């Protein structure tokens, strides 16, 4: 049988119930990155706008605002969801992890440290403009927790719901595999297989430079 434990996760008294009239504000309290936060917001406030405008946590990016691009993905009780497709009032009493909180997920708990996923993005040059990156990192954080040893195909599937207009995705797929490696062994050396795309591009540039000189 199933193990549905949702109801037990809402044992706090802060779960919003009752009625909030149109245009009125109510206090919405959410645990964000381990810290208790609250703000007075309208019920139509999406979780993404609540995080950015009301709490000032602009690490969550808002792209399409209708659930297509994945940039606003956050972890809600550890599970990736589109924060533009959840109302803040519905998330009241729950745990939210944003890009700002990922550094706390490693063993040291130091908020200034980088999580395995963040390190992997740096190692593999998995971002260019960075707009989509918070959504990718939250998605991959949950993805490698569920599947600690993804194949390349599984890595592609893991990020299929997130759009990136810069990278062509190959380096992001590399970063998924690298993050899985770092999650198991923080000291894992960076091997060629994670750098071959950028190396190939680099040597092509050098050739071009050489030809032009």
């Amino acid at each position: 049988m199933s193990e549905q434990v949702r109801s037990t996760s809402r044992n706090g008294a802060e779960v919003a119930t009752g009625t909030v009239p149109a245009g009125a504000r109510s206090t919405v309290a959410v645990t964000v990155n381990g810290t208790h936060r609250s703000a007075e917001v309208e019920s139509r406030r999406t979780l993404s706008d609540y995080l950015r405008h009301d709490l000032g946590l602009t690490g969550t990016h808002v792209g399409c605002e209708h659930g297509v691009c994945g940039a606003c993905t956050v972890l809600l009780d550890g599970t990736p969801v589109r924060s533009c497709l959840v109302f803040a009032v519905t998330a009241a009493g729950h745990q939210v992890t944003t890009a700002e909180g990922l550094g706390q997920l490693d063993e040291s708990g130091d908020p200034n440290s980088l999580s395995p996923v963040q390190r992997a993005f740096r190692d593999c040059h998995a971002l260019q403009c960075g707009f989509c990156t918070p959504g990718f990192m939250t998605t991959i954080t949950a993805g490698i927790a569920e599947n600690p040893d993804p194949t390349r195909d599984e890595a592609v599937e893991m990020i299929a719901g997130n759009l990136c207009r810069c990278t062509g995705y190959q380096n992001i797929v590399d970063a998924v595999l690298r993050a899985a490696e770092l999650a198991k062994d923080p000291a894992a050396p960076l091997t060629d297989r994670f750098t071959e795309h950028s190396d190939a591009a680099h040597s092509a540039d050098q050739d071009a430079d050489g030809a032009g000189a």
Partner: protein
Amino acid sequence: MKPAPFTWHGPRTVDEAVAVLAEVGHEGKVLAGGQSLIPVLAMRLAEPAHLVDINAVAGLDRIVVDATGVTIGALVRHASLERDDAAAAAQPLLRQALRLVAHPTIRNRGTTVGSLAHADPSGEMTSVLTLLGGTITARSARGERTIPATEFFVGPLESALAADELAVSAHFPAASAGTGSAFVEVARRHGDYALCGVGAVATVDPAGAVTGLRCGYLSVSETPLTVDLTDAWNSGDDAAAATAAAARAAVDPLPDIHATAEYRRQLAGVLTVRAAEQAVAQAVQRVGTMGRDNESGHNEEDRSA
């Protein structure tokens, strides 16, 4: 891209939820996972005056698997049902179709019953419920009723739910002995709305002969379409072509910017054969596992070649 103001209701029980619905009537919409509703609100395609948020309602998040099948509450997320091994064992078509519902992140939040209530003819689970002959149970202040899938889907995005009714659960009948199933679709991009999708349920006798083949379609009709293709499948030498032709004749697709009607019709034929082959192969395998016989004469690999 911001929803219009609405009065938010956060009931704790089903009774409270249906009391609100009875009060607000057509002015109200139920919010469960919100993965279809919130985009509609954000684009202001709908501006309901009242939103009844059932996410804090107790007792709606259960998956019950018994001999009759799988019954899911209104707050069961697609991802929970997809991961439920008991549900997948009782009715394999559930997991086969759920893995094609949008992207995993959407499945984490979206609810299966919510998808059904949304009654989108391009939704996988509307097609599955109809193909399996499942039911929806609706509650209102007036009482409770169970609606067969064939009567539930009235038109595109239109269900038989009354304004004061809350869909509290859906029931998918269990796969019976000697049946196999499959679900295939083609979308422009992975996770997008399918241009055409086909679910198939095949029944074979202990000798391996196909005694039943039913297919359910999405994106090629106004309401979920189910077609019995048993005769076409058993029609002789070129049964695959006959089955594809029967499927093409049964569907009624509309053209849009993504595909012409002719292309969708062609897809319906091709995907029907593909789904049927997989479903028959699974049925034969299941019969074989039970009886360990009669696998000769059914060369599924040859047929697809």
